[in-house]
């Protein structure tokens, strides 16, 4: 996986240096924004990819998020954390993109639900495990099922799950993106995990235990 979660003290330094870059951008120094783009692109990409499930959409979300951040930067001033802020913008746009994608898919004769995610070499799943044919087959099947299960979540559920489980966002941040209360956001996280469990338990319960399966942890 890419982009580690920064440690607390590291995050503090980054936030301070971000604040300086924001100030300089607002003072007309456009290149100062470049620092922010280069620093946060990987994290925003990871969020966008997990939400949209495919690379072209994720890349579009990243670009759009930074463009919107630049345009709205004047409103950012009072806030403290640029990383959190640009995440929220990206998540909002990713939801729009998912909705748009759904409409496009609906218009097609054959809805290719999980084909997009298969662009990566499935072998990446078993990077550090010996790829026996059985394990490989199992992983490919499981991977397919996980993509189907994620795609079956509502946009809100997928957003809540990605932001909470994978990105470790605060529930208030999620609530703001979902335009809901904190309680409702918590409930959405729960429903997402419940649905994923319902869909995937049969595939992880038997055979190779899921936790032993080539994860880098």
């Amino acid at each position, binding site marked *: 996986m890419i982009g580690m979660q920064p440690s607390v003290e590291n995050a503090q330094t980054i936030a301070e240096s971000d604040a300086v870059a924001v100030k300089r*951008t607002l*003072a007309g*120094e456009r290149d100062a924004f470049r620092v922010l783009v280069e620093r946060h692109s990987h994290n925003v*990409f990871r969020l966008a990819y997990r939400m949209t499930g495919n690379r072209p959409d994720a890349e579009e979300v990243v670009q759009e998020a930074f463009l919107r951040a630049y345009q709205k930067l004047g409103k950012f001033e009072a806030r403290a954390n640029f990383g959190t802020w640009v995440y929220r913008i990206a998540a909002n746009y990713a939801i729009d993109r998912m909705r748009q994608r759904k409409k496009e898919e609906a218009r097609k004769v054959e809805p290719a639900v999980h084909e997009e995610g298969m662009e990566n070499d499935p072998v990446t799943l078993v990077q550090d495990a010996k790829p026996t044919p059985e394990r490989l087959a199992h992983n490919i099947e499981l991977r397919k099922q996980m993509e189907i299960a994620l795609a079956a979540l509502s946009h809100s559920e997928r957003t809540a799950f990605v932001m*909470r489980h994978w990105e470790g966002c605060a529930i208030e941040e999620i609530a703001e993106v979902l335009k809901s209360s904190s309680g409702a956001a918590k409930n959405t996280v*729960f429903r997402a995990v419940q649905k994923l469990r319902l869909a995937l*338990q049969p595939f992880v319960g038997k055979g190779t235990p899921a936790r032993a399966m080539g994860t880098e942890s």
Partner: protein
Amino acid sequence: MKHMTEEELITYREGISAQRAEIARHLAACQECRAELERIEAVLAALDTMPVPNPGDDYGRHVWQQITPRLPERTARWWQAWFDPKRLGTLASVAALLVMAFLAGRITKRDHTGNDVASTDQIRERILVVAVGDHLGRSERMLIELSNAAPLDPAQKQVNISAEQSRAEDLLDENRMYRQTALQEGDTGLASVLDELERVLLDVAHSPEEVTPAQLEKIRQKIEAQGILFKVRVVGRELQERQKATTPAPAQKNSTESERNKA
């Protein structure tokens, strides 16, 4: 013993449960619920193997290159260089300008509300913004008044513009100084607008005190043709915005420190 619900276990696992301690106590004592939590974790662990493609080490640079052509200009290019703190700090000519601005006593008349914590750069920046903005504002007012000048009596053959003339002369001196500084600093855009303004000011200053309505009309047309009023107004407004932006707002701290799910 009442077992934990699926909801309680999932919210506990995702770090969003309000009864964290209670659930932990129960889990420590109940093997059945521990097993259930393990089944939930097995699904989540499988999901955690979902790869995210690495967009590449230079992805940030790539994103920047892609968005650069679409980024709107935050400020008009030809005067933003004036407000670059790095430049302001080093320019002797600008320092001279600031001294002039101070002597003119213009700055001290502006709002100053105990900003003792503002950095030297910020103060310099604000002073320059105020000085140039003030100059442009007065130039604008003079040109508007001149454009609106009309004979007091319709039968009058001449219009007296001496008041505007003497103001134009004062503005000319300042304008030259600003224009020269802009030229020295390679701010050709700003220099060119100030140059245009200067020619108009010169025309006004060198006109006879009494002009005929036809002569006045000529001056008016010249002002209009060059669009100088519009340019001056645009720059003046931008400067006002900058002035607001560089006046520090009361410090605000983000109170919601996000609780992280994972270490």
